[in-house]
């Protein structure tokens, strides 16, 4: 459980790599499936905040998945979704595209994996749990990867926020609370002209 376990995991492990779903036959199937899925947002409720990256549809998927996976009250969803939206907005395009694809697959995978007529966000909470557990416990490695990605996103969206720390007994960063100095002086970076001058004078 080292920090670095999700150092990259948190933002990138499950999301950024184009290989995410390219993992054998099952991955190819998932990838193909995702590419065929609709991306429109017409049937998704407007959101009471401006989004930087996620569409209304993606926001709905990620918030529902997060509160179910982390066992949180529904009302925390918007806050988590907003945090995830801001984080994803700063990630490289490959990561963003992978995230979009993943969320689309999760939303419409109900038809493929559970033969349900309704998409994920329209299921009851109990059915959402059963559906997500299906991803977690799947014998298909690619589905377990997607679950890990969702869980990681959810963890980042919720547990990175100070409001989540008190309930779990985490006392938060020392910085700004406990004054400890450093006697080490880091070098100031220099402009290109100074580098050119040094190289010329060698």
């Amino acid at each position, binding site marked *: *459980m080292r920090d670095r376990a999700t150092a990259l995991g948190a933002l990138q492990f499950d999301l*950024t*790599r184009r290989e995410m779903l390219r993992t054998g036959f099952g991955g190819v199937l998932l990838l193909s499936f995702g590419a065929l899925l609709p991306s429109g947002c017409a049937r998704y409720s407007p959101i009471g905040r401006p989004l930087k990256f996620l569409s209304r549809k993606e926001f709905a998927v990620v918030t529902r998945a997060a509160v179910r996976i982390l066992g949180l009250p529904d009302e925390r969803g918007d806050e988590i979704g907003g945090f995830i939206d801001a984080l994803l907005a700063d990630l490289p395009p490959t990561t963003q595209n992978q995230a979009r694809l993943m969320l689309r697959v999760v939303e419409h995978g109900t038809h493929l994996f559970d033969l349900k007529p309704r998409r994920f966000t329209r299921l009851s909470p109990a059915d959402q749990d059963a559906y997500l557990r299906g991803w977690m416990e799947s014998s298909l490695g690619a589905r377990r990867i997607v679950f890990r990605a969702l869980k990681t996103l959810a963890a980042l969206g919720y547990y*990175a926020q100070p409001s989540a720390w008190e*309930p779990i007994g985490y006392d938060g*960063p020392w910085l700004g609370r406990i004054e400890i100095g*450093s006697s080490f002086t*880091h070098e100031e970076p*220099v402009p290109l002209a100074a580098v050119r001058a040094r*190289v010329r004078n060698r």
Partner: protein
Amino acid sequence: MILDTATVDSDVTLTSDVCVIGSGAGGAVVARELAEAGRSVVVIEDGPYVRSAEFVQREDVMYPRIYREGGTTASAEYTVLVSQGRLVGGSTVPSFCLSIRPPHAILAYWARNFALPGVGYEAIYPHLRKVEKQIGVRRITAEQMNANSAKLLLGAEQLGYRGYLPFHNRNGCVDSGYCALGCTYDRKGDMLTTYIPAASRAGAVIVPDCEARQIVTHGGRAVGVDGLFNRSRTGARYALKVRAKVVVLAAGAINSPRLWQASRLPDPADAVGRNLRLQPNVVVSALYPEVITAWRGIPQGYVVDEFLRLDEHSAGHGYLLIPTFAFPVAAASVLPGYGEQHRQLMELYPRLGAIGISLHDHSRGRLEFSDDAPPTVAYRLGTMDQEQLLDAMVQASELSFAAGAENVFLPYNDIVTISRRGAYQSIRERGIRANDPLFISYQPQGTMRMGGNPRQSVVDAAGEAHAIRNLFVADASIFPTSVAVPPQLAVMTFATRTAEHIVANAAGYFGT
């Protein structure tokens, strides 16, 4: 000096004696040694220059800032996740600072089986000692152990398992516990505070935020490096050309072979990107009756090496058991469970401890290259390694119970709880499958192995490429097998050796 890449507003060409690619444990050492020997040195680092004031102890801020873009390189079936730092100082900056010497038996095995007579323990000892002094290696004291480490010590004592207080490269540690997010207080002997500033004082130019794209060769000799700035004054990606007499590749065991391959360099041994060892880590968590606040203090204050079996006639086998812990985001991501169960587990956070399993793996993976993307890691745990890992999960559970744990949680996706000592059948029942449990590698190695035989290896005992003159490799790529322990010290030691070889043969490399 360190270039402020925000001032770059055009293509740049620099000339130097040496161009080093990467500023981590290998690159920083070579840069300093050669700069102090009077050579002009340019270091190209893909990541940013981040000073300690920016280490704000927040996971959401630091993970994307100081770890490799593109995240970890996950294996093709996500059986293993590779985690690497990406900033000036490389993975030494967010490291847990374990400074464990490369074992005698491993070095002897390398010397004997890979035609490397100069890499035995006695031969490298002077370089090892030099490194240890530079980064301030000292033994962790019993008083410095945090509660999680003390649990491992207690468990080992109860069971009679062999272990020790390890060495580390911290000085004046304040026990904040934020090692993996970079030390705000500059109490680590990482490259950012030791070798990099020393290299800079000696005249080296450090170029952060610049991606090395190609090693340039002419007539079978390395003559420079072409790169692209990731950052500039205008936002454009300007070109950097460094023309040098010697090139040192130290970008790590994933990116060094990638650059070799992207540069279309010859590989007559068909060894570049092969022989990948990952020293996979798996975490077993435990619930204790009392609060242990395992996120504070030195994270890895004790090591159990009872199950690491090394001898110089084989590469040995086994694993280390090392205490470990994580801040909330990482913990929530790694801890098993779903929904309410997961939330309840997180509410026990102050009472949780964890043991990390570091496997001395024999499984050989490989990198699969493509022109337009980072390499894919193809790695599967072989049968013997799977057996070792299952055994390690049993032993980690046993140690936790011996230290007083009430429950042990195995690192599977869903919660697999062991509630009493000896009830470990669930470990064998669950076994190991792709991505479950999750393995993480902080120490990829072996993808450009050294050896005396050019038909079987990429570099010689000095780290110089067999196939390209004046090109050296100075990172964990060169290890012929897993080094069995955290490799930071071994990488720095071999990098020192490489630098001294270049200095001793300067006339041949530089003409002066």
